[in-house]
């Protein structure tokens, strides 16, 4: 039996969800018998592959780069998992939504800078007008709330999916905690 292709991506988030994923510790070895990690910030692949079975998405959609990535990932993934509050609600990155991009830039790059205040241009992807949770941009199949979701929650989700079942999380996860 061939192994399931699993990927993880990191959009606008703190990488805490990936840390929690690493907290699976020895259970990672158990999972790796059933899955192959084909793309992730934890491994060194440049191109997001075709026909991925499960992708865990950390982070919210904040800039043009995130938007580009998530559209591509959705296209190439069978089951898309929103992992953690940033992906699910916008969370901390989303706090800028109440401020607006322009005032945010002014605050960050002009008012709070004493030496050579300047705006970043070109080199980094432009910010979108508002930060969005993943499911408000593309359809999402599994929602896993938590900041971050615990290692055992992630273990449950991944092993259920690998077993061909949809995890039932309704009353198991919560925002924040």
């Amino acid at each position, binding site marked *: 039996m061939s192994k399931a292709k699993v990927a993880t991506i990191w959009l606008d988030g703190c990488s805490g969800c990936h840390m929690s994923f690493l907290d699976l510790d020895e259970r990672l070895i158990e999972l790796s018998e059933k899955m192959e990690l084909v793309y992730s910030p934890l491994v060194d692949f440049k191109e997001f592959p075709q026909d991925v079975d499960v992708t865990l998405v950390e982070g919210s959609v904040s800039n043009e780069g995130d938007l580009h990535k998530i559209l591509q990932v959705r296209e190439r993934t069978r089951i898309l998992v929103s992992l953690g509050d940033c992906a699910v609600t916008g969370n901390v990155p989303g706090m800028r939504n109440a401020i607006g991009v322009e005032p945010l830039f002014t605050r960050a790059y002009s008012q709070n800078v004493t030496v050579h205040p300047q705006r970043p241009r070109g080199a980094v992807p432009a910010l979108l007008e508002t930060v969005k949770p993943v499911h408000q941009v593309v359809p999402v199949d599994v929602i896993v709330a938590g900041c971050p979701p615990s290692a055992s929650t992630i273990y449950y989700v991944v092993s259920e999916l690998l077993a061909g079942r949809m995890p039932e999380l309704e009353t198991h996860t*919560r925002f924040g905690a």
Partner: protein
Amino acid sequence: MPETLTNTEVVTLTINGQEVSARTDETIMEVAEEQGIRIPALCHISGLSDVGACRLCVVEIQGSPRLQPACVTRVSEGMTVTTHNDRLKAHRRTIVEMLFAERNHVCSVCVSNGHCDLQNLAVECGMQEVTLPYLAPSLQVDASHKRFVMDPNRCVMCTRCVRVCDEIEGAHTWDIMGRGVDSRVITDLGKPWGESDTCTSCGKCVQVCPTGALFEKGVSVAEMTKRRQFLPYLKTMREVQK
């Protein structure tokens, strides 16, 4: 409710298919609670008057075309009530979702994370994601009071603070300003809380607040727990006095 309802009688009604008897001065919420049935609610808190505003506790009553809030609807003979079904569940889920979409609730950095009625309701009602557009209003935190902080980003407009301040403390420092989605809780003439002439700093508002909108200074993320023991105590005392 006027106090004219003194002639209470005992009636029989059906809640979720189960026959129960109750007094006519009891609400559906109270009777359900006695039966161990929990109806989700936000604006309702035992010990304060009920306003029927959050609509989470709406229930189906046979023969009534409209859903009725359990917290203010009194029981009557032969009433047949359904407190939980798919339709009510869907409505409750959307109501919680609306609250998350209305203000800037970021649980992970909230002082009440883990001790929050709204957060618990999201779990209870199975609200996993917000599918509605976020309204993302721009709201200023008021930290002018020497002991407490008011963060309107976490406020759900349940008016518990307004009621406890008026009904229990008697200060009526809090009220609501504006209307619709622009309404906000205010102190006195909408000035910073710390400048209030009427606030007694009793802190009751902080303790009844369901979320991290009102909290004590000095607490950090997840450190704010609310102490509500005084409300049932006061309620019992009042009943004894009556």
